[in-house]
């Protein structure tokens, strides 16, 4: 890779951000855990190793929990790459899950086809709703952020309306739908774990998204527009159309994530609130620096910490919600452009100086040859 030293520095910066977050976690644990040693073990080791052996079940849980946030992370990658702060991922996830659920319950289709249609429908509806903030932004220059935030709530209430007034299974105490048909559930990848084949789809989606963003003209246009819209327009790209495309793809990924989470993990639709994956997706995308191929790693990291916090709450009495504090700290430092900027400046200057020396050497050589 180019600019090796600067890349190393970026890596170092990320590392420091994570280290600070873990340090914060340590301090919090020291304050509130009865047995800090045990709590730390739960957070850092137990998710994968318990009693000296690999904890397979826990590892599969980590993978299973990665599935939805890989999708929303990818969605944020694509949407933010076009420099659009679209926060509609939440709504698209919930809607995708809901539509997939409805199809999974009411539209009897053959095995194989059914689950496929349900997931596809989830993706399509997710993409369709994103047209709203995208077009409003492109055509009217209105804030996509406020619009998408509001849209999340509109979607949530409409789903709750249909859930309560149309699709509810009145025989149950809680508000939920009838169970999905067997043909619509995503089979487990490993029996008796949470891990479904949805995880495999997420990995495939990652690869496709990575190719899309870096190996196709559309992904390329999205990235260029994100860097410099005027340049892209001047270069002859259809800026408005590409922005809408990027948001629709983000919506499709979110919707698909919702559908897969719903059909892979649950038996009935029972989300009564926005599921939160959209927000986690933003953290994941920030950690991955908007690079699709890094998304699963970032998702693994978050999922691992999540699992660690969960175990900590079970075995050491530290509330699992500590994960949010860790996430917030990482998030803030990771996205801070000027964090350690002094050091970066030194590296850039050093690089530039070396470059200059090299250049002078070369010209001297050329001069000598002439």
């Amino acid at each position, binding site marked *: *890779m*180019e*600019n090796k030293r600067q890349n190393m520095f970026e890596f170092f910066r990320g590392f420091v951000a994570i280290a600070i977050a873990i340090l914060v976690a340590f301090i919090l644990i020291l304050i509130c855990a009865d047995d800090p040693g045990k709590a730390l073990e739960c957070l850092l080791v137990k998710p994968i190793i318990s009693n000296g052996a690999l904890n397979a079940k826990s590892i599969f849980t980590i993978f299973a929990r990665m599935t939805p946030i890989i999708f929303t992370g990818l969605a944020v990658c694509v949407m933010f790459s076009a420099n659009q702060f679209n926060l509609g991922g939440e709504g698209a996830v919930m809607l995708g899950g809901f539509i997939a659920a409805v199809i999974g319950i009411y539209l009897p289709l053959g095995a194989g086809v059914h689950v496929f249609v349900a997931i596809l429908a989830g993706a399509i509806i997710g993409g369709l709703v994103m047209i709203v903030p995208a077009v409003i932004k492109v055509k009217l220059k209105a804030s996509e952020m406020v619009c998408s935030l509001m849209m999340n709530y509109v979607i949530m209430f409409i789903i709750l309306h249909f859930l309560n007034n149309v699709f509810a299974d009145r025989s149950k105490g809680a508000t939920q739908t009838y169970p999905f048909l067997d043909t619509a559930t995503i089979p487990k990848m490993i029996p008796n774990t949470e891990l479904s084949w949805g995880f495999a789809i997420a990995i495939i989606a990652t690869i496709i998204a990575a*190719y899309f963003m870096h*190996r*196709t*003209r559309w992904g*390329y*246009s999205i*990235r*260029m527009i994100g*860097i*410099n819209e*005027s*340049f*892209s*327009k*001047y*270069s*002859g*790209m*259809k800026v408005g159309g590409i922005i809408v495309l990027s948001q629709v793809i983000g919506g499709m990924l979110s919707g698909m994530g919702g559908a897969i989470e719903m059909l892979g993990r649950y038996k009935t639709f029972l989300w009564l609130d926005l599921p939160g994956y959209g927000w986690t997706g933003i953290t994941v995308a920030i950690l991955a620096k908007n690079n699709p191929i890094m998304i699963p790693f970032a998702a693994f990291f978050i999922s691992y910490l999540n699992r660690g916090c969960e175990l900590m709450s079970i075995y050491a009495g530290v509330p699992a919600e500590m994960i949010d504090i860790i996430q917030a700290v990482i998030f803030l430092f990771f996205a801070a452009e000027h964090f350690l900027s002094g050091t970066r400046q030194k590296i850039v200057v050093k690089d530039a100086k070396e470059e200059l020396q090299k*250049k002078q050497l070369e010209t001297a050589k050329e001069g000598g040859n002439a």
Partner: protein
Amino acid sequence: MSDNNDFVVQMKGITKVYPNGIAANQGVDFSVRRGEIHALMGENGAGKSTLMKMLFGLEQPTEGEIIINGEKVSLSSPTVAISKGIGMVHQHFMLVPSLTVAENMVLGMEPKQGNKLFINYKKAVEITEEFSKKYNLFVDPHAKVRDIPVGMKQKVEILKALVRGAKILILDEPTAVLTTQETEELFKELMHLKEQGYTLIFISHKLNEIKQITDRLTIMRSGKSMGVHETAEITKEEISRLMVGRDVVLTVEKEQAQPTDIVLSVRDLEYTNDWNKKMLDKLSFDVRKGEILGIAGVEGNGQRELVDMLFNLNVPDDGAATVNGKNILGRPQREIRDMGVSLIPEDRMTFGIAGTGTIEENLMSDRAADKKYNNGPLFNLKAMHEDSDKLIKDYKVLCKSRRQQVGMLSGGNIQKVVVAREFSSEPILIIADQPTRGIDVGATEFIRKKLVELSREGAAVLLVSADLNEVMELSDSLIIMYNGKIAAYFEDTAVLNDTIMGEYMLGLKQQSAEEIGGVIHGK
């Protein structure tokens, strides 16, 4: 010393070298007498803005000293400059549109009510009215700035400086945004200020205006002072000769042009900007295959607007422009490019590149969707890499590899990336807008050579440049723009010299319609 008392401003031996190595001022001496209107003249890039930025504390000189009222000062910020009685009226107004005139006036020095918490708005209005009356600068204190005309905005800017105690006012091309009528009004007000003992530094390159209101003038060229003169004792022609001219005459070797068919045809292009200033006035010309048509002129005479129209970055009020007979006005950039039009944009950082993208990504921006670079939905990376490497080599872009961030390159290398892209798309028409501004000599020479080469291979070239050397040496024929119109057309640039150029560029002369009509080659 009594001598010093005569001068309110003395800048001695000022040299300014920017971090990128460009020496904008070299040993400039500049002094202004108390109570005079002093013109600071020069073409764009002559260094007058840099000099004034140092006087207003926006930049610090690398060498030299500044003496205000006989006292040597270090102007480290505008706040310091203001405290020394220096005020500046920027070309781009520093006003807050939704605030009223009175609020803008007192921003940062708000009069308070007795309790120190609330603004005394009445007092602010009083101050505004008092100054407005005293200096004969009529403004409406209660009007919101966004609702008032440009002329009044400028008055607010002047009053803002006065209310902060400025005794020396720097006016940066104040008439550039004004209509003739507003300009007349401004001059009356400036004379009034002068009568009250204020010292005015007036940046401009409009000869008539300078002659009309200034006492003395300093001319700058290429970062150096060309001397100080009493306005009354110097002719317009002399000013023109001092201001417009080349220090070194570069010669570019090129074969005689053999122009054939008309490629670009512009007819009666008209455009009035948002401030009601006519920027393009019935502009008509043709560019033929195989020739370089230069457009010379002091900046701000409609060149930028013309280029914007030709690449649909703006839309004219009236007129036509065609490439090979097909309309290009208001067409999407994709379509314009597909017709074979290339543009080297004046503002290369805004339009020319995506700074954090790689060199390769920047080279491919206009052609990434081409069949050649795609295998079905995927990029043909091999073809892209090959062509990028070839372009980097052919255009001598100094870099580690195609994967380097383009924004990290030097100005000259960035421009080479832009040029490599624009020249390699087999263009039939190249619009080159200030193609070598602010870049190193090596890159400049390289780009100029390429431009000539392409034209001799059959491309039509429209070269817009404020650089006399460039526009006179590269162009086969040349038009000079003044006030949105063509002031002169020269079929053969060989007959030209700096003096003739200067006289047309500064509006001292104007060719007849018949002479100008020569640039229209079609029926």
